[in-house]
């Protein structure tokens, strides 16, 4: 259990700047998710925390100890890899005991630790098997067990669920969350899956091009995205975006309809207006549109509509009676309309 400070960390490979002066503070027991598209630098940042790569500038502090120059095994950090990285020549029990063996933990204590995590992760019956005899989900558990057995101060997860099939991924996600709740170990979790990020993280850092775009709790990120990138990256189906204009009096208009938002400081500017699919209402006096596609998912229905604003997705609860070709009108709730600068992408209101 520990706090982690990442201070001013940059990383460049030759002329390519992968990370730009990253500052992050993790509280004790926090579950921080690093999320972003591939190539955003999230894995590099994770490797730097693990000690597998050196930062070009900056420092790292874990539990009050400067770990910037320490080799990976002296950092008290355990990592679970995307490919699980189980040692193919060792049994499950030997895999879990390996980090303890390297730390010269006596044999009896090792066996105890193995038995303990095996019970916790329900892999006791697999202890004598080799990794190749296990299914993907079982391998994942063993990899987590190996990290857990060491009782590290910090857990690192590098896209641990992306090799699992969809159903197993959802199950393991819930188990990881429960595990974190029961152990309370400070955790950094890297993923490119925004659903994983939203469901697991106590806070989420959205990365793009080596810069943190926004660092916030999942709901804050969803309700008040700091810029256009975060708004479009988080949320499924993704946010509806449309070119808009701010009138001289500061009212934000979208396809001629007043959204109700007032931004007097941004008068005359070109903006991007974003509305999440569930924040659109059907209102007789709203913006006219025509239904192009209806996608029922069971609990809710996504209705794709075409209007002067372009194509929007509307999320309606339950079953929908709409059919392609139907006419309807959309209304906006001023509190739930996001306005971004069209050039910089920064949030205006």
């Amino acid at each position, binding site marked *: 259990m520990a706090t982690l400070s990442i201070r001013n960390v940059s990383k460049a490979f030759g002329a390519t700047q992968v990370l730009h002066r990253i500052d992050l503070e993790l509280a004790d027991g926090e579950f921080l998710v690093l999320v972003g598209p591939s190539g955003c630098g999230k894995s590099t940042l994770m490797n730097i925390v693990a000690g*597998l790569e050196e930062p070009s500038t900056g420092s790292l502090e874990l539990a009050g100890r400067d770990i910037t120059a320490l080799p990976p095994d002296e950092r008290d950090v355990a990592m679970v890899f995307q*490919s699980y990285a189980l040692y*193919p*020549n060792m049994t499950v029990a030997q895999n879990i005991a*390996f980090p303890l063996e390297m730390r010269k933990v006596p044999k009896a204590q090792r066996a105890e630790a193995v038995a303990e995590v095996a019970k916790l992760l329900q892999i006791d019956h697999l202890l004598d098997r080799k990794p190749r005899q296990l299914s993907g989900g079982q391998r994942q558990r063993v990899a987590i067990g190996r990290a857990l057995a060491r009782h590290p101060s910090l857990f690192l997860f590098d896209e641990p669920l992306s090799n699992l099939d969809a159903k197993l991924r959802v199950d393991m996600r819930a188990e990881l969350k429960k595990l974190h709740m029961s152990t309370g170990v400070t955790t950094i979790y890297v993923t490119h899956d925004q659903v994983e990020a939203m469901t697991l993280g106590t806070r989420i850092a959205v990365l793009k091009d080596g810069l943190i775009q926004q660092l916030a709790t999942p709901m804050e990120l969803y309700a008040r995205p700091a810029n256009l990138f975060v708004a479009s990256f988080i949320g499924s189906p993704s946010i509806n975006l449309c070119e808009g204009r701010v009138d001289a009096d500061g009212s934000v208009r979208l396809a001629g309809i007043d959204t109700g938002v007032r931004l007097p400081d941004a008068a005359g500017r070109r903006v991007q207006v974003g509305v999440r699919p569930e924040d659109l209402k059907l209102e007789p006096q709203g913006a006219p549109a025509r239904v192009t596609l209806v996608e029922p998912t069971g609990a809710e229905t996504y209705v794709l509509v075409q209007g002067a604003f372009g194509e929007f997705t509307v999320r309606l609860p339950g079953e929908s009676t709409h059919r392609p070709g139907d006419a309807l009108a959309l209304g906006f709730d001023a509190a739930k309309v996001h306005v971004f600068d069209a050039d910089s992408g920064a949030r205006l209101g």
Partner: protein
Amino acid sequence: MSAAATSPATGRATGRGLRLERVLLYVVLGFIALVFLAPIYVMVVNSIKPLDEIRAGNLVALPLQPTFEPWLQAWSRAQIGVQATGLKPYFLNSFLMVVPAVVLSTAIGAINGYVLTQFRVRGATLIFGLLLFSVFIPFQIVLIPMARLLGELGLAGTVGGLVFVHTVYGIGFGTLFFRNFYAAFPPELVKSARMDGASFFVLFWRLMLPNSLPIIVVNVIWQFTNIWNDFLFGASFSDYSSYPLTVALNNLVSSSTGVKEYNVHFAGAFIAALPTLVVYVLSGKYFVRGLMAGSVKG
């Protein structure tokens, strides 16, 4: 064999086309096998014939009076050097030469491959390039410098000297094999082991080597065959007491005095070829697998 038992790729063909194809295939394979087996047949058959039968002229005929006398002769009684010792002591020399040389060159090759792929070594590409170059250096070029070096080291004319020469020559190929194998080794495994606290040698000994069986087999077969069959180094750097089997066999066959005992020569040649045959038969399937492992595995 029925069509259902064949691979899906050929399984689509019609029954008749398939049968014809198969027959042709087996005829060709059978012929090639015959071409390869014919010399072995000739050697075995003639090595168990009395000399009179060979002199009668038919090399392909089966022996009328089979005898193992030529084998015993070649093994322990034939005149090789000054004494009539047979091939036995030279067979031992070859083993004393080939076993340490194979073990050492494999070990050094494995460590080289490990360091060149898993650590950032300054000039790694250049070092590897030079090691690779050593594979292409013809044996003849190093004869004189090597003779001088062995003299300086006090290893001239000894089995130890031959071990040294073959180990040095084996490093190039060993490094090539292991480097290519380890270049395809999953990097996350190495990262994980480093985070778990494995040191340089622990990582090599506990993780890399146990997962290198295919390439170890390839290297062992390759080095064993080359070193066992080497004649040039054996003839150049050894003397009566340290001749390897190949040189002794040559002495046996080309001795100019007395009657040419062909049956003994056949038996001697077969004895000399036997160990490499055994190595191939025992590990052949790993050899093919290992040669492809580096290129196919991701």
